[in-house]
Each structure stands twice: as structure tokens, then as C-alpha cells.
């Protein structure tokens, strides 16, 4: 893909420029990984900027590392460095940055964003068994999240790489509607089948850029243990329902939870359902603008309440 390599060169140029002038501490970007997924690179010297890549293996959401940096406590004797962090984001990842700014985790003055326009990346799970290396994005390899993506141009970017892509796709939530159309018994059977597979590796939690509680409820022992460690269905059900509620109205559908899930649980279908409902009921959408009020941090006198007596 000629387009991708041109963008790659631009990303490297910008990173090199920022690092050479010393205006950023380091740049978080993609580097070639083993297998069909890129890995995160932390480029600290201008000379290393050529490690950065851009191709359809860049599926991961790097804002996780930005958040970790923002929440990190300084080491003993470490002086705070006021310079911002540079980060390479796809449009979907840029929504995470917006959401993190909205939640006052990321100070916009402390981040410089290289935003790439994007027309989809490959799903590594769909490439299992094929030759390792960047594959073209085709209907067979494209990640599911990209087929319903409504944002092909980055938000909040200091530098935009790539030409503007027209927004064509309208998300009809058909994957969610499929489950909604089932009878309650079928829905329960479906989720029972899916969630009983969960091994509770907590991969979905660890990789989620918006799961950042200092102490996670699933780790708590004192004063009360909320969740047992067994992988039986009731505990798994509790875990996934609570996790979904914690992300209700915040999830920006970067699809990382589903990508890392070793048991292929359709976690996005839970998140997307609440995303859909929050939009229908309250007109809120995560990651649209940092000026928006948070879903559960705001309320309206006229919020629907048809089930309340």
C-alpha cells in the first residue's frame, strides 16, 4: 500500500522534528511486532524515529500508555518534566484521548497528538495461520470495529497525517439488534454460552484505556470481597455486567477488549449495547468532544423513566 508507507514517512518526520527540538519528552508510536500485530514503541531520541511504522497491523490502542504516564507517580527524586508526550493515534484512538481529557485524566497541554486518517486495520485473529507481515485490508481481514467505524479522521490532532477521508459508514448496531431480536430465553442462552467460557484473565480490563481505577473492584479484598476468584458462570456474569456498566456511556469502541480476549467472548456486543442505549436515551456519545458532560456525571429532568413505578 503506497499510501501507508507515505504516511509512515510522515509520522517519522513529525516524530523526528518533535524529538529533535525537544518539545516532547518521548513519542509513543507503533513499531514492527512479531506476528500480525504491531507493538508499542517509546521513541526518546530523534535518531530512533525510524523505528516507527504505520501499516494495517497497527490495530492496538496506544492511549493506554499515555494514561499510564499521566497517572504515574514520580519516582523518588525524579523531577517533574513539564514537556508533553507525543502519541500516534488512529481516529478511534483519538476518541479515547478525548474521553480521557473529558475525565480529567489527560491534561491537553501535556499531550501532542499525531493523528492518522484511517480506513481500517486488520484483525490479527482473522490472520491466524497466514504469512506473518502486513496484510492488505480487505473485506476478509478488516477488523470488525472498522466495518462500523464512523470516524475516519482524527479528533484533537496537533498534526494530521493523511488526506481527509469522507465519512461514509452509518453504524446501525446490527450486531446488537441481532441479540435484541431474540427472546429473553435465547438471550440468556447466548450469554450463558459466551460468558461461561471466560477464564477471567482480566485481559479486557488490563488493556482497556478507560479502566483506570486506582483500586479495581475486582481486586478488592477489604473491607469486602465483591467478586470471588472462581471462573464459574455466576462470577463471570457479575464480572462482565459490572465491567459493562463501568464503561456505559464511556466506551469508545476501540475493540481492544475483544482483540485480547483469549476465549473470543463478544465483549464489544455488551459495550456497544450500552453505547447504543446511552445514545438513544440520553443523546450522549463518548469521545465526541471533551466539552461534553460525562454520561453518569450529568442528568436531565426529562430523562426517560418508563420502567420506574
Amino acid at each position, binding site marked *: 500500500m503506497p499510501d501507508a508507507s507515505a504516511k509512515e514517512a510522515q509520522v517519522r518526520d513529525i516524530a523526528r522534528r518533535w524529538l529533535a527540538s525537544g518539545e516532547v519528552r518521548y513519542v509513543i508510536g507503533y513499531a514492527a511486532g512479531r506476528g500480525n500485530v504491531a507493538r508499542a514503541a517509546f521513541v526518546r531520541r530523534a535518531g530512533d524515529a525510524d523505528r516507527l511504522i504505520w501499516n494495517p497491523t497497527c490495530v492496538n490502542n496506544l492511549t493506554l500508555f499515555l494514561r499510564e504516564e499521566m497517572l504515574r507517580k514520580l519516582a523518588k527524586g525524579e523531577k517533574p518534566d513539564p514537556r508533553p508526550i507525543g502519541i500516534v493515534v488512529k481516529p478511534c484512538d483519538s476518541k479515547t484521548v478525548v474521553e480521557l481529557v473529558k475525565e480529567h485524566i489527560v491534561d491537553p497541554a501535556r499531550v501532542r497528538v499525531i493523528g492518522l486518517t484511517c480506513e481500517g486495520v486488520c484483525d490479527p485473529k482473522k490472520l491466524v495461520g497466514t504469512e506473518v507481515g502486513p496484510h492488505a485490508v480487505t473485506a476478509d481481514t478488516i477488523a470488525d470495529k472498522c466495518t462500523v467505524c464512523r470516524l475516519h479522521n482524527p479528533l484533537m490532532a496537533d498534526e494530521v497525517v493523511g488526506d481527509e477521508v469522507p465519512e461514509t459508514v452509518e453504524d446501525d448496531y446490527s450486531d446488537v439488534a441481532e*441479540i*435484541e431480536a431474540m427472546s*429473553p*430465553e*435465547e*438471550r*440468556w*442462552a*447466548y*450469554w*450463558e454460552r459466551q460468558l461461561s467460557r471466560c477464564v477471567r484473565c482480566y485481559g479486557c480490563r488490563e488493556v482497556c484505556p478507560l479502566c483506570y481505577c486506582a483500586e479495581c*473492584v475486582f481486586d478488592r479484598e477489604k473491607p469486602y470481597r*465483591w467478586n470471588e476468584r472462581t471462573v*464459574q*458462570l*455466576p*462470577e463471570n*456474569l*457479575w464480572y462482565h*455486567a*459490572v465491567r*459493562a*456498566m463501568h464503561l*456505559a*456511556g464511556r466506551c469508545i469502541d476501540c475493540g481492544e477488549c475483544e482483540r485480547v480476549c483469549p476465549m473470543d467472548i463478544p465483549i464489544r456486543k*455488551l459495550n456497544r*449495547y*450500552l453505547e447504543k*442505549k*446511552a445514545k438513544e*436515551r*440520553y443523546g450522549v456519545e463518548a469521545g465526541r468532544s471533551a466539552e461534553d458532560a460525562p*454520561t*453518569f456525571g450529568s*442528568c*436531565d*429532568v426529562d*430523562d*426517560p*423513566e418508563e*420502567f*420506574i*413505578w
Partner: protein
Amino acid sequence: MAENDSWEPKIIGFLCNWCSYTGADLAGTSRLQYPHNIRVIKVMCSGRVNPQFILKAFQEGADGVLVSGCHPGDCHYIKGNYHARRKLTLLHDLMDYMGIDPGRFQVSWVSASEGHKFAEVVTRFTEQVKALGPQTKFTGGEA
């Protein structure tokens, strides 16, 4: 589903201190009859009720969970019940989506002067939960 007629549902009620708990008190002092299935937990505001509490109550063996607070606009903390309404509505939706009988979870607005309404709500909700039978999805076994 109820195998024998002696089965009675366990219902956990989260009542707000300012309206519903006082309303329940009024139902008591007015000698109103309502089912004894409800176990009341007093919270300072319906906005205090985390969706986690409800799911945890189910896991600990509750057959139904009732959350009751002040009427919209009457909250002692101005907006607590509006916030509760958003969270709990989405939780109700999620339960429906996951096929976990949303009928086991109910929210109601009961003011301090509505002892009769509290009795009505508890009666109606107990009947609704009774019809659904024991809750086993979160407990993982026979109730």
C-alpha cells in the same frame, strides 16, 4: 418454577433516607399491610446505589431488588435521584439484554408522605417476583 407453595421470594430494598425510608415508616405507623418479603437497607440517597449493589444482591441470593427514592425534583441532595435514574435505567436495559429477568429489578419513587404507595409497590413487586420464581442465574444453583 416455584416447586412448592411455601417458597417466598427474598427481596432487598434500597430505600433512601429522606423519602422512601420515611415512607416505609409511615406505612408501618399507619398499620398498612404489605408482604414481609422485603429486607430494607437504608441508603442516604438513591444516587448512592451503585449498579454493583444490585448485581451483588442477586449474587448473594436475592430474588428481587427494589430501589426506591424521592420523586424527581424532590431529592434532598437536589440531583441524586436523577443520577440514579440514568444508572439504574441502563442497568435495567443491560439485564434485559443479557436475559437476566429485568422484572426482578425495580425502581420506584416514594415520597415520605406516600406510605400507601410504598405498601402498594412492595405488594405489586413481590407478586411480580413470585411469578418469576427463584433467581438462579447469579447464584448458580437451585435457590
